[in-house]
């Protein structure tokens, strides 16, 4: 366990993280997440985070060492897509019984690895540690080592049991496992000066494939994505890339930075959400590749592509402006993930009336105020208040994750999913247009008038009640003002 504790300290100590750089030594040790509040916590555990980060590696057998709770209710429940093997969608678990709890689960784990290799022959088995065996002291590193030697197959221990922390920590610990056991263990057959890694992109709903065509057109090869639609060998060979783009900054910054340290692969933090961010990311990729020996004419081709695609995308979005002009959006995400999404929404005529800033930095908040002076910055929006806000129609549509979906729908408000369970892809130049199209589709659906209508036999609707209450208030204040007027 001390090994894990060191690992966690190491991850907390991330020098690549801007927030971390300004912290004191003591603050840094405490880590990046607030302590969880019993009875008031929401969100996944470290194991969940590790699984989210690695499961998109599609040809690997992902084996969860623990009781049925950890895999039984969560397997095959994410919308990440594969262009080949479907093995990542198979749920493997040691499903520890009472017997294993008494006598230890290592033997069952070893036999499970053997069964998986015999039946499914994957290029590697990833073994995820969970709370129960961690507490019992099952040494999955040792089991993986023995199994790898015995079966001649990489068996990779992913040590992120749920109780060590939240999802975000699990993302990073998963990245550490890749650094320790996978990256750099194989050599690619060929390399080109145009090879890149994309780190922290999971190919939710096929989003990676929205940005692949422009990269293909530019002759830029994704040597490895960590981990969307990835193959084991691609991750193992990723140390030969010339440059890297880090997509989801909080998730795997440790991987990007350590790959720069170990293999000299420069990285930048970018996003494929929104038009300007997509363009900026393409320029950055080109810049880094050129700095490492790619032909500088690449930049001209990038600029030409950007000019063409931006014009197309803006034109497509502009077409929605007459329909979306003045519509108010409540944007609830973990933090403002992408400024260019806000830009694109504004271009389409939408106004951001409120956004959650729980995970945003001070600069984020200031920038947001600048862009949209009337915006409500919401720190900890409880469902009840969200419901009230929507019901009082301070917004026309809510964009959020699935968790708050029913708050919006029950208030009879249009809602659109922008989190990881979403079924539409919103990346790159085509994705942002798709997002605007989906917003339009949600807003213009004819059900809204119908679902808000009161049944014919109902005498008082909630709108009428609200109007009446407002009228009563107004009448009361008018009455209060009246005597004064008379005296005058």
């Amino acid at each position, binding site marked *: 366990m001390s090994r894990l504790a060191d690992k966690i300290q190491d991850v907390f100590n991330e020098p690549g993280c801007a927030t971390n750089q300004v912290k004191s030594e003591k603050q840094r040790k405490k880590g990046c997440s607030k302590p969880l509040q019993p009875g008031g916590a*929401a969100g996944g555990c470290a194991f969940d985070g590790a699984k989210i980060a690695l499961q998109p590696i599609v040809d690997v057998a992902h084996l969860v060492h623990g009781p049925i*709770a950890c895999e039984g209710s969560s397997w095959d429940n994410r919308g990440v897509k594969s262009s080949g093997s479907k093995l990542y969608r198979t749920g493997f*678990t040691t499903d520890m019984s009472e017997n294993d709890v008494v006598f230890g689960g290592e033997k069952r784990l070893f036999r499970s690895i053997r069964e998986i290799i015999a039946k499914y022959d994957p290029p590697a088995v990833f073994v995820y540690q969970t709370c129960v065996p961690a507490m019992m002291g099952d040494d999955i590193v040792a089991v993986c080592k023995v199994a790898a030697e015995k079966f001649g197959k990489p068996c990779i221990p992913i040590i992120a049991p749920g109780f060590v922390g939240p999802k975000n920590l699990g993302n990073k610990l998963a990245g550490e496992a890749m650094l320790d056991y996978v990256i750099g263990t194989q050599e690619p057959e060929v390399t080109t000066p145009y090879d890149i890694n994309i780190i922290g992109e999971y190919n939710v709903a096929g989003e990676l494939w929205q940005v692949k065509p422009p990269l293909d057109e530019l002759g830029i090869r994704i040597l490895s994505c960590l981990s969307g639609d990835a193959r084991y060998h691609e991750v193992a060979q990723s140390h030969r890339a010339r440059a890297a783009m880090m997509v989801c900054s909080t998730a795997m910054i440790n991987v990007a930075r350590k790959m720069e340290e170990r293999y000299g692969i420069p990285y930048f933090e970018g996003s494929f959400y929104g038009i300007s961010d997509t363009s900026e990311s393409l320029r950055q990729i080109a810049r880094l590749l050129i700095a490492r020996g790619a032909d500088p004419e690449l930049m001209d081709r990038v600029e030409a592509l950007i000019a063409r695609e931006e014009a197309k995308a803006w034109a497509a979005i502009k077409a929605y402006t007459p329909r979306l002009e003045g519509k108010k959006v409540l944007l609830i995400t973990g933090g403002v993930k992408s400024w260019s999404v806000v830009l694109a929404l504004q271009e389409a005529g939408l106004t951001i009336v409120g956004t959650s800033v729980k995970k945003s930095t001070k600069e984020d908040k200031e920038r947001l105020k600048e862009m949209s002076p009337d915006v409500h910055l919401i720190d900890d929006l409880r469902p009840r208040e969200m419901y009230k806000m929507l019901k009082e129609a301070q917004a026309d549509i809510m964009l959020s994750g699935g968790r708050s979906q*029913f708050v919006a729908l029950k208030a009879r408000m249009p809602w659109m999913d922008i989190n990881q369970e979403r079924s539409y892809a919103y990346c790159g130049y085509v994705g942002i247009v798709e997002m605007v199209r989906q917003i339009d589709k949600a807003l213009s659906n004819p059900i809204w008038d119908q679902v808000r209508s009161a049944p014919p036999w109902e005498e008082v609707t909630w709108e009428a009640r609200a109007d009446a209450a407002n009228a009563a208030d107004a009448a009361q204040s008018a009455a209060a003002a009246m005597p004064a007027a008379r005296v005058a």
Partner: protein
Amino acid sequence: MAKIVTQTKSCTVNPLRMSQPLGAALAFMGLRNAMPLLHGSQGCTSFGLVLFVRHFRESIPMQTTAMSEVATVLGGFENVEQAIVNIVGRTKPDVIGICTTGVTEIKGDDLDGFIKVVRGNHPELANVALVPVSTPDFKGAFEDGFAATVAKIVDVLVEGPAPGAARDPAKLNVLAGSHLTPGDIDELRDIIEAFGLVPTFLPDISGSLDGHLPDDFTPTTHGGVSVAEVAAMGRAGHTLALGEQMRKAAAALEAKAGVPFTLLQRLTGLAASDELVATLAKISGRPVPQKYRRQRSQLVDAMLDGHFYFGGKQIAIGAEPDMLLNIGGWLADMGCSVAAAVTTTNSPALAQVPSDEVLIGDLEDLETRAEDCDLLVTHSHGRQASERLGVPLFRVGIPMFDRLGAAHQVAVGYRGTRDLIFAIGNLFIANIKEPDVDAWRSAAVDPDQVDAPATAH
């Protein structure tokens, strides 16, 4: 008599089973203004939350004691106490249902003892019911957790009858197993009320998880049976226990308050529906209403129309014991043969499943056994096997995340059975292979292909 076999392989592949705490949480969600609280790492709750949200397409109340590694090792009393205080402060529930998980069971956290201390420390919580239940996720399954919870709710919340107090013969307790949907419970309520009886369902997920628009947003369950209604169950004239899993709770209710019970293992099919209706006629002393005589007649007609398509079909079912017995038994009644039966946990119900063998296993086992079957019956996770085998899938149970209306799938009583014949019969019809000359040539080899009237087009 089916032989019950336990899988001996080490690695579970494509789990059918879910853990006890989730079954427990669902049972608590059938109480009004309730908050289920899982005593474990926050992931235990978060996985369950996502599962139920996707199944019911509803906000789901569920909290966690958010055990860290250190707290787990030292013991979780403080986390449980803080969680209860915070939940009461934030959401004002009438009842908190506290379920253990794997880690806190291993540590040996004694929830009953914890709650005694919490009660002592916090007199201000006196009007909040606290129901602890032991649900380690390294043994048993969803159904076991659900059953244990209902028994514990009876134990903690039902009041013994006051001496000399009269029973109300019109009041009927209904202990509803985890195989029943909100739609099933609504249907049963209609049937029971038609006999002039006043049912109290425990748990009653038809009020809380049936997908309706509440007047205000509450973070706890908005609907379900109230703590006061549960307390009064001891004064009812009779208890109906639905599903073998409810036997323990029914026996607890009988022991505590002297309410006699009738256990109905199945509710789908003609004979099962007859038994339900006859039981209600007997309890109420009333004749069977005209409406149900008519529905019975419609069901008989549906059986006559449908039997062509069901007869001789090979079915592979993966479901929890009570669901397996109910659906498997009914399919056998319709002339199907249950060629493969896989379940999650042991139960006295299993011996009666009309199959040579019932395997306690996973969906990989079901897939291997379903190769030559005509229909796969299991929850949504059967979708991959269905695709690979080219065998149609009929979804039953939890989770059902890739179809609408999971809460309103009704399979009980005459009308429920009639509609189920249509739903599954139509799946068979949609999959009829049109005979052509080659089919007739090979008919001698594979006679199954041409024995149903070809009305698919």
